[in-house]
């Protein structure tokens, strides 16, 4: 299967600081990427997406950066809040409808 991995399994940040969560993907032909947030006992919640023809996309307090040269994806969360504490997954799509998920990074926001 495809390999979508995260560099760090856990990340702790102080409230108000910026968070950066990283993801490496293995297939250079992947054309669409999504960051999901998963809180305990809940399903993955869409945060932001980016297509392979873009390098950067911004949402509300979140930015996704795509570096196709090194097959790296990052999620930046500005002014991290306690409600941001969750597991964050990147998911990639290689044609079709099937998304491949990474193992996740657990973000803990320290008040």
């Amino acid at each position, binding site marked *: 299967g495809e390999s979508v991995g995260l560099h760090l399994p856990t990340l702790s940040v102080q409230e108000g600081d910026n968070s950066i969560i990283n993801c490496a993907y293995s297939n250079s032909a992947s054309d669409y990427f999504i960051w999901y947030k998963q809180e305990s006992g*809940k399903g*993955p*919640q*869409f945060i932001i997406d980016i297509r392979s023809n873009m390098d950067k996309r911004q949402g509300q307090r979140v930015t996704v950066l795509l570096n196709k040269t090194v097959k790296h994806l990052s999620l930046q969360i500005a002014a991290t809040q306690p409600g941001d504490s969750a597991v964050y997954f990147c*998911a990639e799509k290689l044609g*079709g*409808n*099937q998304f491949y*998920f990474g193992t*996740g990074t657990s973000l803990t926001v320290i008040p």
Partner: protein
Amino acid sequence: EPEVTQTPSHQVTQMGQEVILRCVPISNHLYFYWYRQILGQKVEFLVSFYNNEISEKSEIFDDRFSVERPDGSNFTLKIRSTKLEDSAMYFCASSALAGETQYFGPGTRLLVL
């Protein structure tokens, strides 16, 4: 805001029994999916469904698994002859278009004893 719903939230069954997990996708979505997540592991794709047919399935989706859209709103996953290793969280998802953003339900936690 429209959302995907799933029932039941928890299901406990004996090994060898059949279970049916139910989902109501977002109403104007045409593509439906099932994923599973074993505790502590990554979310894994099971199957995608469009126009009353399976469009893709993974190796996990063996002949014990089936999906159905019995009416205009429900989308079900049936697992026959359940095994201990089927214990996982099962997520339904839907998307408006092929390959577009998939929106997930809250999941059904299945425990096979």
